[in-house]
């Protein structure tokens, strides 16, 4: 799929993913700086705190858009299978970690890690899915 990008839809999707990754980093640093400088509290703190999540919402929207506009059904199928792997891996990991937190008192996993964990499992699913069609 994305090892040899062919369609304009794929090119756009990959570009958006890279851009959003960069934006998350920039906005996270900016939000941290804003909280440090201005000691934001109450209502003004909410929009600033949620800023780094906006590029993530953008990628989720673009993922749906890619699946809608990609003409190559096989490529769509590959991404959907990888995302199913991502969903399964995320659910399994976070559920297991939840029980570990409850009973074994391991450190708390902040929910902001769920999104990177999801894409980590999407990435891990790719070689498995691609091997099937080699």
């Amino acid at each position: 799929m994305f090892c040899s990008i062919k369609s304009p839809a794929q090119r756009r999707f990959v570009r958006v993913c890279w851009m959003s990754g960069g934006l998350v980093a920039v906005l996270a640093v900016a939000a941290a700086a804003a909280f440090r400088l201005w000691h934001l509290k109450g209502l003004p703190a909410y929009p600033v705190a949620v800023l780094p999540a906006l590029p993530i919402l953008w990628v989720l929207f673009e993922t749906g858009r890619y699946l809608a506009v990609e003409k190559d059904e096989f490529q769509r199928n590959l991404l959907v299978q990888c995302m199913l792997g991502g969903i399964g891996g995320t659910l399994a990991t976070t559920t297991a970690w939840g029980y570990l937190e409850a009973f074994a008192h391991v450190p708390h996993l902040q929910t902001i890690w769920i999104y990177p964990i999801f894409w980590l499992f999407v990435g891990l699913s790719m070689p498995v899915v691609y091997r099937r069609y080699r």
Partner: protein
Amino acid sequence: MKNRLKVLRAERDWSQADLAQRLEVSRQSVNAIETGKFDPSLPLAFKLARLFGLRIEEIFLDEEQQG
């Protein structure tokens, strides 16, 4: 699903990339369909049939009917 794509392609001296270009899909898609690992949707199957000037059942083999 078994199919005759490889033979039909060879008869026309088309590579997988040539067929992919005509179908507006990736070469990996053609390979996956040709090897029977991915079943195309009806619209893509009709597109293939139109391209080769055949009926769908002349390209894709109904394994249940064949026993």
